[in-house]
Structure formats: structure tokens, C-alpha cells
């Protein structure tokens, strides 16, 4: 359906029509309205090493031994990288608006091929430095060879006002393992539009965790395709949102073959006027028998003006499957708070303990102890900083 809407200034600058609420997947995240200023693409911005180093230091994983690959303002930064690009090709055909925009504007991106067991985590750091508002786009392709295993962190950081566009195309070979940890720690004045497209091979173990906490506006799409039997995927996420932050995650888990298991677990904390959305669709194709697919999203609303919307969907064309979904939304349980207080724990501390316990369940998807501890520490800091402000 073509729309007769006049282009907004933001759309003029991009040369693209932005998704709007008339599109079912975008009903809660109308980019036409929410992106209210131009972010021109392909702007060359130089950064000083001092700026880069300062931002690098704010990665949650500075204390975790990792091989880094750094991208600054959309370009590979050899000086701060310990990992070079490989030759892997993009093969995904993706036609949704986030992808098309990224395809048009991406200036660079990580190209990685993992063979064998890589024990040291690899951290991909995407930095946007403070400059005039613009679009910064990277397109990344990661290939995990058959029988290989790796832990890959994605850290998105920045200062100032920008639109970060990130597409991550991941192919996981047979009998391989991938732990992916993404931290969206963008500037509070940033827009983050991302897509992760993951193809999961036979007998794969895949664990995916995303922390969403930085940008004022975040939209993350994920498509996870099972193309080989006996694979197991866990996709988890946590939101820590306050102020007027808006985050929308839209996932499609596509069981194309039998005997695979998928678990999605999202724990979302929203305070002030923050708004969180979780859209999860599980598709079980014809013949994909013995699929075990479950998704759940849980929201903790810390203020009366915070909001959470969930849209779980199951699309099942096989008859011997175990699939389900659940979504809950509410404030802190008063009985829990009273019980902790009755043992001498002051109210603020009791609440922080309960909130940490709430999001902690999603952190359990992360198996690397150092990475999980860094995430837990960040959550504790977020809660206490946030409380001080409130």
C-alpha cells in the first residue's frame, strides 16, 4: 500500500520513508513521529584517540579479557583493534525498512569467521563520538564454522545526538556454539535501530542476551532461523529504562526443521515515562515436529506513567509440538517489599534487591562469569544511580 504522507524532514535527510504505525510491526514505534529531526547519512566524522579511549573505557567489559574490534563513527579503527576483518560475505536477503536503510548507508562493519574453539571473548565495540546529528551505520557478518565455538560481545556506545543503524548477520555452522551478548549503551540522545539475523545449524547451542538501556529510542529486530535439527537457542533480554526512553524488540523465531528448542525470556524494568514493547513470534513450519518453543516477557513498572506492551504470537503448522507464551506486567509485589522490610532492610534497598532479582533471571543466560558479573554490577549501579536521581 503506498501512502500519500508527505515526507518529514527526517525522511528527506534519509531519502527513505520511515516505518509508521500503519504497519502492524511498527504500531507502537512510529518512527515518523519519534524521529523528529534529520540524521543525514554518510557524514565523515573524525574522532580524536582521546575521545575514543574515553568511550572505550566506558564499556562494561573493560575489565574482562577480550579481543577487541573497534568501529568509530562507522569506520574500522585499526589503532584500537586487536582483531582484523576476514572475508565473509553477506548472504541474507532482508527487505524490511531497518535493513534497507542499513544496506544503503553502511560504511563498514565487522567481518568475522570463527574456526575451532575461541576461548577469549571477542568484543565488537561500536562508538559514535559527539558531533552534528547524523546516521552512523554498520553492517556486520559473522560466520561460526562447523564445530567451532565463541563468545561474542557487541557494545554500542556514544555521545551526543545520532542515529545508529546496526545489522548483524550471523551464520552458525553445525555442532557449533555461540554466546552473543549485546549491550546497547548508546547516548541518551541517540536512536538505535538494529537487526540481528541469525541462522542456526544442526546441533547448535546458541545463547543470546541483549541489555537495552542507553538510547532514547531503540528498535531491535531479531530473526532466528533453525535450519538444522537438534539445535537449542536461548534468546534473552533485559530493559533498564527511565525518563522518556522507548524500546521495542520484535523477534521472529522460525522453526523450519524438527527437533529444535527455543526459549525467549525478556525482563523489562521501566520507570518514569519509559515505554517498553516486546513482540515475539514463534513460527513452526509444516513438518517441524517435536519443536519445543516457548517465549515469555515480564515487565516491572516502577511508576504509574511507565508502560509496557507485549504481543506474543504463535504460528504453528505442525501437530506434534510443545509451544507456549506468557506475558506479565506489574509493579513490585508489596508483600515481597514488606517481608524484606520486616527483616530490617530499608525500603529503597529492599526495592533495589527485588529489581535486581527480577532482571537477574535474564542475566542467567550469560554463561561467561566475568561478563555476567559485569552486567549484574551495571544493573546494580543503574538502580542506585537512578534512585538517587529520583
Amino acid at each position, binding site marked *: 500500500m503506498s501512502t500519500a504522507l508527505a515526507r518529514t524532514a527526517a525522511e528527506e535527510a534519509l531519502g527513505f520513508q520511515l516505518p509508521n504505525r500503519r504497519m502492524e510491526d511498527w504500531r507502537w514505534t512510529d518512527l515518523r513521529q519519534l524521529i523528529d529531526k534529520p540524521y543525514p547519512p554518510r557524514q565523515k566524522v573524525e574522532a580524536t584517540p582521546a575521545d575514543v579511549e574515553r568511550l572505550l573505557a566506558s564499556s562494561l567489559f573493560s575489565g574482562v579479557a577480550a579481543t577487541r574490534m573497534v568501529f568509530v563513527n562507522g569506520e574500522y579503527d585499526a589503532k584500537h583493534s586487536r582483531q582484523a576483518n576476514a572475508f565473509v560475505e553477506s548472504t541474507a536477503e532482508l527487505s524490511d525498512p531497518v535493513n534497507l536503510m542499513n544496506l544503503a548507508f553502511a560504511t563498514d562493519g565487522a567481518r568475522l569467521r570463527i574456526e575451532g574453539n575461541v576461548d577469549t571473548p571477542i568484543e565488537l565495540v561500536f562508538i559514535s563520538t559527539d558531533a552534528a546529528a547524523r546516521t552512523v551505520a554498520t553492517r556486520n557478518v559473522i560466520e561460526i564454522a562447523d564445530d567451532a565455538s565463541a563468545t561474542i560481545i557487541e557494545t554500542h556506545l556514544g555521545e551526543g545526538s545520532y542515529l545508529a543503524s546496526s545489522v548483524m548477520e550471523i551464520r552458525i555452522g553445525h555442532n557449533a556454539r555461540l554466546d552473543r551478548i549485546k549491550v546497547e549503551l548508546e547516548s541518551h540522545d541517540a536512536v538505535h535501530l538494529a537487526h540481528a539475523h541469525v541462522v542456526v545449524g544442526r546441533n547448535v547451542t546458541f545463547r543470546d542476551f541483549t541489555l537495552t538501556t542507553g538510547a532514547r529510542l531503540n528498535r531491535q529486530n531479531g530473526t532466528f532461523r533453525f535450519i538444522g535439527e537438534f539445535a537449542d537457542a536461548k534468546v534473552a533480554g533485559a530493559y533498564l529504562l527511565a525518563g522518556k526512553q522507548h524500546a521495542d524488540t520484535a523477534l521472529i523465531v522460525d522453526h523450519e526443521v524438527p527437533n529444535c528448542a527455543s526459549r525467549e525470556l525478556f525482563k523489562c524494568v521501566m520507570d518514569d515515562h519509559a515505554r517498553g514493547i516486546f513482540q515475539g513470534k514463534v513460527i513452526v513450519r509444516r513438518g517441524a515436529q517435536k519443536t519445543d518453543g516457548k517465549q515469555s516477557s515480564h515487565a516491572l513498572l516502577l511508576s504509574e506513567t511507565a508502560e509496557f506492551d507485549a504481543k506474543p504470537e504463535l504460528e504453528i503448522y505442525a501437530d506434534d509440538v510443545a509451544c507456549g507464551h506468557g506475558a506479565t506486567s506489574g509493579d513490585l509485589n*508489596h*508483600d*515481597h517489599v*514488606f*517481608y*524484606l*522490610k*520486616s*527483616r*530490617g*532492610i*530499608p*525500603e529503597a*534497598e*529492599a526495592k533495589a*534487591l*527485588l529489581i*535486581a*532479582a*527480577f532482571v*537477574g*533471571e535474564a542475566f542467567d543466560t550469560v554463561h561467561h562469569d566475568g561478563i555476567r558479573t559485569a552486567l549484574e554490577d551495571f544493573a546494580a549501579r543503574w538502580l542506585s544511580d537512578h534512585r538517587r536521581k529520583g
Partner: protein
Amino acid sequence: MNLLDINNLHVKLEDEDRDIIRGLSLTVKPGEVHAIMGPNGSGKSTLSYVLAGRAGYEVTEGSVTFKGEDLLEMSPDERAAKGVFLAFQYPIEIPGVATMQFLKVALNAQRKARGEKELSTPDFMRLVKDRAAKLNVSQDMLKRPVNVGFSGGEKKRAEILQMAVLEPSLCILDETDSGLDIDALRVVADGVNALRSPDRAMIVITHYQRLLDYIVPDFVHVLSKGRIVKSGDKHLALELEEKGYAEFTESAA
């Protein structure tokens, strides 16, 4: 000095007009064990919640003084730090918070509120291990989230463990015997008796006399329709067991 003075207390639910506690007075001195017995609906649990500071209740008349201070003015955590402990009839499950962590945060919060030094991790571990062993609380239970997946007996033992670690000066046991078989009851009662001391008092709230065979009270009070209608020594409990509550509840009407 009296530890606790409840004077002509009237309490109602915030969103209802009817008083549940209607002119209750009770004085508790250090070292004493008071049993409060009464039929369902007599106000036993309300009394325990009001003393612990749970929201949803409104005191319309009377006063409660604890260690010379107005208890009703304090928040639940302040009451706990001052020495009030309620062992819940239905202990609350707290997913995601390990029992050990919970005990440590609670103990150190109380110590901090009292201006005492926080306990180091090794000292704390020693304290908990010692108390847990006496109550048959396993290391596994301590690692699990607070009360989550605990059996009825485990929950009650966990409550008494918290009491043993926090060392309150006033222990309120709300129907601690409910849901316990005789073996579990004995373990819990032994745990409570081990905490009896000249400067600690207890209020044991129960429907049945059975618990009082194990935790022998100095005083027994019969609660009916929000008021203490009769007080006596431990023999009163036996009398109640024989005759039932009818005699007392009728006289209160």
C-alpha cells in the same frame, strides 16, 4: 522497664469501618513468653501484622510502646532494627534472592541502623552455619531463593533461622505450628526454646494448645473479638483445649 506496652489498641482495615482489634491491652517484660490463643477471626494475625508494621491497617485508638518509644511511628525496617521480629504464618517466597544473601543484607542493614559495624563475610558465614546446623537447615536451602520451593516445614525452620541470626528482643510467632507434623514442630520448638533468654520476650500466637507443650508460656491470654477476655498461666491453655473457645467467646459478647 516493660519491653512492650499495648494500651487500649483499636485497629481496623484501612478500607473497612469495622474494628478488628477492639481495646486490646498487653504488657510484656523482657524474658517473658506470652501465648495468645483464640479462634479464627479473633484478631490474632491482625495483632501480629500491626506490631510488625504491615500496610493496610489503621490504628484508630490506643498506643503501642516498645522500649519506651512509640512503635506505631516507626517503619517496618526501623522496628526490625529496634528488635521486633515477626515469624510469618505464611512466609513469603522471594524468587531470585538467595537466602544467604538475604540474611546478610538484613543483618547488616539492622547493624547499620543501630550504628554497629557490619559483619565481615567470614564472620557472617560462621554465624549462619552455626545457627543453621542447629535447625537442620541445609547448605542447599541457604543457596536457594528465599522460601522458594521450600516445604511447609522448611519455611518455618527458615523463619526461625532468620530469628536466630537477627537476634531480636521481641519475637512474635504467628501460628508457627500450622502445617507442621509433630517432628517438624519439635525442631521448630527446640529452635525457639534455644532463643529464650532473660532479655528476650516472645509472643506466641496459636489456635491450638499443642505448640505450648513444647514452648511453655509464662502467660496465656484468650483473644476474642479483638479483646483479651481472659489471662492466666499455662494451665489456661489446657483448659481451653478441653472446653473449647465457646465459653470465652460467649462471655465476650
